[in-house]
């Protein structure tokens, strides 16, 4: 069996998309914490975004399928809960992709949330809980469009 370097494995992981926000790869999301090649088979360490995130199982399956596709059928996926995932781990490129996709990227508490369409800062929170656990529902008061905001976590 062909052996892979950690870099090569990361490049494959770059092609695994978040099933709920397909413009983001799991690397953009920041949930892949390490690739270890010290054991018998490669180990990929993943930190889930939310405890109840239904995408977690799907992501693990997608990682396995993608690795198989590239000729690496035997891998170990380890779930690591601590330190807990935070939106700070999301890449800058990922935040840009989110905004282009129409989802306002996570902002620290002291920075204002802006409308991903018209960039207006005049927005209002409709509900803290949006279409998935990681998003809140907002509305732009200028262009009037509702939009998702990726919660700071």
């Amino acid at each position, binding site marked *: 069996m062909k052996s892979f370097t950690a870099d090569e494995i990361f490049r494959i992981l770059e092609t695994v998309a978040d099933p709920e926000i397909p413009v983001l790869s799991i690397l953009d999301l920041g949930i892949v914490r390490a690739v270890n090649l010290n054991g018998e088979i490669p180990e990929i360490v993943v930190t889930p975004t939310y*405890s*109840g995130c239904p995408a977690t199982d799907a992501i693990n399956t997608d990682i396995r399928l993608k690795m198989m596709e590239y000729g690496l059928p035997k891998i170990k996926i380890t779930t690591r809960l*601590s330190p*807990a995932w935070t939106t700070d781990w999301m890449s800058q490129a990922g935040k840009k992709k989110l905004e282009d996709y129409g989802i306002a990227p996570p902002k620290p508490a002291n920075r204002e949330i802006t409308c991903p369409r018209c960039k207006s800062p005049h927005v209002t929170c*409709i509900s*803290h*809980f949006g279409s998935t*656990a990681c998003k809140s529902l907002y509305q732009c008061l200028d262009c009037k469009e509702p939009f998702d905001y990726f919660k700071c*976590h």
Partner: protein
Amino acid sequence: MNAHLDYVLHLADTTLVLAQRNSEWCGHGPILEQDIAITNISLDLLGQARNYYQHAASLINTANPNAQADEDSLAYLRDEREFKNPLLVELEKGDWAKTTLRQFLFSVFQDLQLKRLLHSTDTQIAAIAEKSLKETAYHIAWSSEWVIRLGDGTPESHSRMVTALNEVWEFTGGLFVPAPYELQLAGTIAADVSQLEKPWTETVSNVLEEATLSLPGKTFMQQSGKTGIHTEAMGYILAEMQSLKRSLPTATW
């Protein structure tokens, strides 16, 4: 069974039963956004429960390699007397006032408990607590807004909140009475819940005051759930949750 396993199951059962209760709103919430909110909270709690059950299963399987315990067998194949959740979480969902008030009273307690569990000597419990705390902050924000909105709302919504408070209150005291397994582990693996009543009462009375509701006076407190003695509501919720797994044991999702 040892105290450590009992404690992990207690944390698991508590989050699972409340997740199941809240999920009864799925498709029945007062408006779409709130239907989504309550089911998201339910999903958070279910995820926390899965983490605890997986941990409990690994404790069982490490002690006895032939045990083959897993999260599903622990959630679906244990009987009422084996469930260690406090009574508060099993009460029927009632109306929107009762659901949001119960969530608020529980989330404030859970937040205090999890903050102490960050220092649990069981590092897996500490890791689950760290993850769950971020979620609980949203649950408190959401549920306290509803308690205030309904309590300080119309005469109808206010009276619904008063009724809910009277129904639920006697089940809050049990949260702060440690079960024998908690007492044995308090300060090491477990949080000492007897210390949480004071800060809990402070936060709760501030929100109730803003909601123009008065803190109920001293009353008899029910406190048996954590030792496996439950209200009549418990059998029904387990029947609904477990019947599929029990009648079709090999079913998969």
